[in-house]
């Protein structure tokens, strides 16, 4: 899969951009604050409809303008034209010039995995970050998962609202408990199937990056073991006091163990960086396995933060992506520019919201 064309209008610092990209390894060079990461952000947005920097729509509009537009041509088994327009008054998402009615019909048109500084939160952050990591993978590979997840979250919100009503209506609580259980069980089951498939990929990525040959284990820790309904029953008294749903897959954890010990507390800064990178590599490998084609890899200046040996560990993944006629976009500055990737690079210079091909 690759991105053949990208058009931006009033997106971040780009007033207007029209660029064509071949499959292969693209390096976006430029000084800081020229718009390198903004390009990756636009590609990621076209793939997931979210900013990997957690930015809302307003922040993505070029200063003083009404709305932004992203046009993308995704070439996979078929060629699809993506159009995204966002302004305060209007949001428009089109696929081949037709309005998209259901998100599930759209997601998967363009698949991308981003490597960025925020990845460190996968190791350091709260369980919510790791749940999102599992959910994103499942939503992209398992039909129906996203629908169950949205339904489950709606059931949790509704049930919490019931628990906050005074006096507590038991029958009403039961009605929403039924829905919570119905949507929650397939989510737990899907995560339970995912983690054993993901764990060996993360372990082998970790081994290839870290010279020390450390072992990384992923362990899915569903907050509920056994029947969800029985667990909810058991928490009834506490729920009544706390007035919120206290058990369920919205509180699950994906535990990371380095050499058998919890990584969040025992790993060094360098090891945490290794683990975060290994998780992202596992994500890319898993998506490749599930769809038969590699996702587009977006690498935001992480090479600069990695030492020589960790960079070397990442290279095979990047080369494989390229080999399978995939695509890699990597930002770097003149200083962090990875010289070991000398061959067959497509170089671009980014300066003040403009993109210029650099002859090899």
């Amino acid at each position, binding site marked *: 899969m690759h991105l053949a064309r990208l058009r931006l209008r009033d997106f971040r610092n780009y007033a207007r951009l029209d660029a064509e990209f071949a499959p292969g390894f693209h390096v976006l060079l430029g000084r800081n604050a020229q718009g390198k990461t903004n390009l990756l952000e636009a590609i990621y947005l076209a793939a997931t409809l979210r900013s990997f920097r957690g930015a809302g729509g307003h922040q993505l509009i070029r200063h003083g303008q009404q709305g932004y537009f992203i046009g993308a041509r995704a070439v996979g088994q078929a060629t699809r034209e993506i159009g995204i327009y966002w302004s305060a008054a209007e949001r428009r998402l089109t696929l081949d010039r037709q309005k998209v009615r*259901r998100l*599930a019909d759209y997601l998967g048109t363009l698949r991308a995995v981003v490597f960025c500084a925020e990845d460190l939160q996968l190791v350091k952050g709260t369980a919510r970050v790791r749940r999102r990591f599992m959910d994103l993978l499942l939503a992209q590979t398992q*039909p*129906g998962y996203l*629908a*169950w997840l949205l*339904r489950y979250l*709606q*059931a949790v*919100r*509704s*049930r919490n*609202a*019931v628990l906050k*009503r005074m006096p507590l*209506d038991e*029958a*009403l609580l*039961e*009605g*929403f408990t*039924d*829905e919570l259980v*119905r*949507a929650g069980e397939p989510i737990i089951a899907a995560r339970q199937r995912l983690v054993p498939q993901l764990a060996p990929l993360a372990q082998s990525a970790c081994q290839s990056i870290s010279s020390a040959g450390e072992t990384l284990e992923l362990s899915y820790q569903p907050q509920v073991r056994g029947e969800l309904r029985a667990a909810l029953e058991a928490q009834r008294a506490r729920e009544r006091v706390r007035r919120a749903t206290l058990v369920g897959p919205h509180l699950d954890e994906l535990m990371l163990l380095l050499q058998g010990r919890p990584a969040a507390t025992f790993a060094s800064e360098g090891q945490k960086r290794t683990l975060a990178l290994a998780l992202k590599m596992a994500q890319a490998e898993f998506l490749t396995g599930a769809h038969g084609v590699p996702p587009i890899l977006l690498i935001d200046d992480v090479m600069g933060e990695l030492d020589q040996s960790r960079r070397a560990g990442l290279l095979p993944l990047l080369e494989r992506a390229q080999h399978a006629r995939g695509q890699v976009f990597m930002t770097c500055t003149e200083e962090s520019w990875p010289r070991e990737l000398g061959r067959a690079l497509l170089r671009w210079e980014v300066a003040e919201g403009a993109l210029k091909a650099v002859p090899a």
Partner: protein
Amino acid sequence: MGMTSLPEPVERLAAALGRLPGLGPRSAERLALHLVQSDASQVRSLAQCLLDARDTIAPCSVCGALTQSQPCALCADPGRDDTLICVVESALDVLRIHKAGVFHGRFHVLGGRLSPVSGVGPEDLRLDELEGRVRGGAVREVILALATDVEGDATCHYLARRLAGAGIKVSRIAHGLPAGSGLEFADELTLAHAIEGRREICG
């Protein structure tokens, strides 16, 4: 008055129209401008229609559907089956099911569905009225025809529990594939429901 603002009565009309469901400020303004430039007799007759409709239409005291007479024609019809009650969310749903012409029992409009996040609880729905009708004796089956989202489904679970002691059958309408269409148009949840709710066929 500046050149850019509309005369005050037009502004007030636009504001009143803008409170109607489905009308944004721009459409409300366009309608208001259209009305003040229309033939006066047409506008007068529109106003009369609004008043007439509002004055003569009321919810049916039995089923809650919209009617001119009490009880409504469907509740008064002696030819309909008193042993079946079909429970729907809105008066419009009554028309939809009635139009399909396949249901010959009575109706009951809830006036919404349980929605704790928007503050709609059991006391806001016509549930006591439903229980009263069920306790009346003739009813043998209550058919729930509600939406299939979280709130609609939770309302069904709730009703099933609440009516459980009444010694009647509580069922809900099947959900699955739209008639006459292929599997390719169904989303995953719909297919899951369709498989769950499969039926044996005789060969």
